[in-house]
């Protein structure tokens, strides 16, 4: 399978006054198209920092992240939003939906950010909701949706604009077991049918069963 993300000897150090915390220490990793990669590890092991660097939200202190062959380390801070917009879809633990927008509009936000054709905004956002079984909930506000429905809207939003990589941060943490399984199923299906790379951070054992590959992080270092 073709590599879409390459992490090469990446280290992230946080310095606050005299304190120096190595959040991620010399991690090298590859993510391939059509692959579901699960990153597991205890709290404080550096999972979120690693995900932030994969998603081009954080610059590594040293090492490099290559997205589709493009080196991010050499990029300026102001260039990163375009990379994120083009390559990544995000699924967050707390869903992070906009309460003032309907389910369809929450999806539409990303399409608008990506400069989608205005005439297709409504149709495509409802279509994406259809892919996660929520077409009939398109006009509902997040407050009127269940936790599982919210996460599926968030997933539809992550798929908006057809990004090659989905990054999911604890996508099942706020869901019951059955719903969590459904969401993980959606992520895997998306990876297989659309040939997308999916990186999941999770403590959920069910996620391990769904993933093609699992890596463990402890004290910022990778444990194979």
């Amino acid at each position, binding site marked *: 399978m073709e590599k879409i993300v390459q992490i090469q000897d990446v280290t992230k150090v946080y310095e606050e006054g005299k304190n120096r915390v190595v959040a991620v220490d010399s991690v090298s990793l590859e993510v391939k198209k059509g692959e579901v990669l699960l990153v597991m590890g205890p709290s404080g092991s550096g999972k*979120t*920092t690693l995900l932030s660097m994969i998603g081009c939200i954080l610059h590594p202190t040293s090492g490099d992240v290559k997205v589709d062959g493009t080196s991010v380390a050499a990029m300026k801070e102001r260039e990163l*939003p375009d990379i*994120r917009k083009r390559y990544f879809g*995000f699924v967050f633990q707390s869903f*992070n939906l*906009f309460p*003032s927008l309907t389910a369809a509009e929450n999806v539409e936000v990303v399409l608008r*950010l990506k400069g989608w054709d205005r005439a297709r905004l409504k149709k495509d956002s409802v279509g994406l909701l259809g892919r996660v079984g929520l077409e009939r909930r398109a006009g509902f506000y997040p407050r009127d949706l269940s936790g599982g429905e919210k996460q599926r809207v968030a997933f539809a939003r992550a798929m908006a604009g057809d990004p090659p990589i989905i990054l999911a941060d604890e996508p099942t943490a706020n869901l019951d077991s059955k719903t969590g399984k459904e969401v993980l199923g959606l992520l895997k299906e998306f990876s297989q049918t659309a040939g997308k790379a999916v990186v999941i951070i999770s403590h959920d054992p069910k996620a391990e069963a769904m993933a093609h590959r699992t890596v463990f992080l402890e004290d910022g270092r990778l444990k194979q």
Partner: protein
Amino acid sequence: MYWLAVKTFFHERSRLFTTLVGIIFSTLLTITQIAMYLGVMGNASTIIRHTDGDVWVTSRNIQNFDFANPFPEDRINRVRALAEVDWAQRLIISWGFLKLENGGQEQVQIVGYNPDSGVGAPWSMVSGAASDVKGGRYMIIDKTSEQRLGTLAIGQVSELSSLRFKLVGISEGIKSFTTAPIIFMSYNQARLFYPQGQTTFIIAKLKDASKAEEVSRILRDTMKDNDVYTSAGFVYKTVMYWTVQTGMGMGFFLTAILGLMIGAAIVGQTIYANTMEHIQEFGTLKAMGARNLDLYKIIFTQAAMSASIGYVVGTAIVFLTKNGFEKAGVTLYLSVPLFAVVFVVMLLTCFASAYISIRKVRSLDPVMVFRG
């Protein structure tokens, strides 16, 4: 992102209401204060502005239109002697007491003009004509004086400083700075209330209005016991006196500024609170690829919408209450430039208030979205 700004803006109804109340109040206070100031200053200079003259000759060291002193009226000949002068007319401004029907009396300002030339005559008549004061003890009173003088009826006879005058005309919207009712009469009758052989102003119309400054200089050189102003200069002198020397301008200015500051504080506070409440959403947008500029657009659009809606409602209230102000004897001078300036100021105030939120969003680290 304008789309998202609008959606979010109308979603937060209670916050929107608070913001709008602040801006409405601010708009109301600012417009009414400035309009009142302009109205008062308009009244203070109304006769100068509505008199068809280019140059005004006044007594020496005059402070404003209302506090003029007498000087010999035959000095008009020196003005008429100038080749640049087309015509010159005299105007008397005096004071008297008008006896009221209830036995009381009211101090009034007397304006004596030449009814043949109409220079200094009332310019907006409800009944009668400005020339009707000719040939006897006739007077024209402004309708706005009814609150002080009682209902005016053509033909009524009133005692003005022991002399009986018949009302032959009613003007409209002509008020003095002092708020004393203005009574127009012929120059000859006004002489009865003034030292003999004296006048208050000589007004000259020039053949070429553009030479007003030059003619004023010539007259100043030849009439050492008088002051000479161009029409615009005399308006400026009068307005500046009331604005600066009485502290009145500062009073209006401070209240208007206070209004703006209240608006700015409320808008700033609500926009900041709104930004903080939606900080997770801003972080999400950043994570998903929104640039800082996209987020600024949201905040500035909401600030602009707050300013615009608040301004429109505030302005509508000003129009709705204008009659109430007028009935209370307060002139509001409302004009397109005033509305335009207040709108721009309101908009800038709201943008400035939004700046704190902009700083917050600029420094926002999108990593926060992964921290629950």
